[in-house]
């Protein structure tokens, strides 16, 4: 059931097999409290308590009973409190109860984990201990985006990577079915640069790499590799537009293109790319591109670059392990050139050309494929959401950050749980 604002309870199921904290080999979602927030329909009103009790057997109190005071005692398992004026409830539900709520039709619109929030006065600075880091299990970017605890893998979703190609014999891609096309004259889609292999790895790397921690978001997505940049990582609009056209024709739900060129302050977006992106959206394909790396914060902020500056292309900025905007990440300075989302973009580990096999790199080029991978997870979770609907879902489900929208847009992209 789809409720107001496009919310859908079907996207909010807890991970298969119960709570993420009980899953062996999986990390808990960062900064979750263990409680659940439930959004109820506007019509629920006074019946909210009865709806929650009937649907999931949760015992709830009404916030009005506290006369505006803070809930005096912590919630016990199976308990909750309803905020009647907000049409929302806070519960300490067990996995079965959470699943029952997420599947409920009618007046339960959305169920999601409660998160810790920070005061704006902190200006986006988390305590030292809150910085994420790579673990033996997974790269920090997968933890930050909750890709690790996501029950989806991108299976059945086509993701196109427009870049320098792919090292097809890389141990993490060898044997994987990959569709490939080169738009660079005289070259196959083989990657001799490394950038393309890296970005493909972040978006769609395997659940179990040949060596080291997991770094790929949508491990079972169908990979479509378009070589639109040469082996010196250069290319032209014509190559890129041809790659977009190829991806749309092949019904890719997502195109990740970690490329761009700087624009001037006051410069508008290119009309042809905007039109191409709008047509791709209408055909069911979301284009995702990096905001660019031209800034030197805090002193200098450069505008979102071309082609991410097109309103119909999802522009992705970069954050670090504390979820602070990366110093190089561009901002929304020009008309239309908004930052839509941010993704992990500092000290990102992924695949590179043999014999090195793995590498660490920083840039909005690394943030964009994180978002592309998450889009693939959302696309699997919501087969009805394609094109503009998928783009909206991506923005709606982002984790808000303290950084201004100029730099972080709707916030950090989040995998469905």
């Amino acid at each position, binding site marked *: 059931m789809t409720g107001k604002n496009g919310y859908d309870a079907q996207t909010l199921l807890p991970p298969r097999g119960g709570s993420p904290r009980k899953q062996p080999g999986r990390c808990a979602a960062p900064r979750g409290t263990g409680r659940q927030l439930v959004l109820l329909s506007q019509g629920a009103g006074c019946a909210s308590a009865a709806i929650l009790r009937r649907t999931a057997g949760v015992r709830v109190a009404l916030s009005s009973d506290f006369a505006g005071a803070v809930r005096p005692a912590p919630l016990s398992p199976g308990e909750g409190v309803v905020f009647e004026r907000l049409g929302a409830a806070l519960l300490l539900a067990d996995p079965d109860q959470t699943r029952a709520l997420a599947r409920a039709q009618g007046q339960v619109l959305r169920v999601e984990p409660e998160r810790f929030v920070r005061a704006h006065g902190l200006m986006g600075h988390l305590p030292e201990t809150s910085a994420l880091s790579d673990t033996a299990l997974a790269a920090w970017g997968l933890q930050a985006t909750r890709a690790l605890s996501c029950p989806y893998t991108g299976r059945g979703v086509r993701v196109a990577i427009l870049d320098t190609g792919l090292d097809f014999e890389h141990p993490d891609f060898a044997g994987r079915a990959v569709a490939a096309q080169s738009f660079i004259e005289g070259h196959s889609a083989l990657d001799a640069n*490394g*950038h393309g292999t890296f970005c493909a790895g972040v978006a769609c790397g395997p659940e179990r790499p040949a060596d080291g921690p997991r770094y790929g978001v949508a491990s079972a997505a169908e990979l479509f590799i378009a070589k639109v*940049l040469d082996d*010196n*990582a*250069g*290319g*032209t*609009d*014509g190559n*890129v*537009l*041809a790659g*977009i*056209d190829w991806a*749309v*024709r092949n019904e890719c739900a997502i195109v990740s293109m*970690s*490329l*761009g*060129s700087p624009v001037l302050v006051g410069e508008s977006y*290119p*009309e*042809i790319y905007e*039109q*191409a992106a709008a*047509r*791709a959206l209408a*055909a069911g394909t979301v284009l995702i591109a990096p905001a660019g*790396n031209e800034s030197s914060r805090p002193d200098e902020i450069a505008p979102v670059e*071309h082609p991410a500056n097109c309103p119909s292309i999802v522009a992705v900025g970069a954050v670090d392990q504390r979820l602070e905007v990366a110093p*190089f990440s561009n901002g929304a300075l020009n008309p239309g050139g908004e930052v839509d989302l941010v993704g992990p973009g500092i*000290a990102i580990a992924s695949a590179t050309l043999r014999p090195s096999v793995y*590498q*660490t*790199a*920083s*840039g909005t*080029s690394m943030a964009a494929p994180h978002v592309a991978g998450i889009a693939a997870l959302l696309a699997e979770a919501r087969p009805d959401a394609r094109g503009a609907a998928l783009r909206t879902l991506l923005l709606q489900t982002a984790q808000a950050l303290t950084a201004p929208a100029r730099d972080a847009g709707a916030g950090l992209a989040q995998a469905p749980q």
Partner: protein
Amino acid sequence: MGRFAFGWDRRGTDAVSRANVAIAVADDARGRIYEVAAVCRAVGLEHTSTLTDIGVLLGSVELDNLLSLRAVPGVVAVEVEREFRLKQYLWGG
């Protein structure tokens, strides 16, 4: 109405008289994109690709013919191709 984006200064090729271009075809002309392409060729487009799924023509043209290209019925925008170059200084480490 379409517009031009004179981007060749980025490529350092302002001394040349010919430029690679991308041409956007109007929504209501996408069904006859090959006819639009034929008219573009007639006004000087060296036509290399037709991207039917996004309604774009690629090719090159003498700079003097850009205005003629823009005036072709069904053309909404003509833009001179830009180059992409990834930032290598952020790469590695």
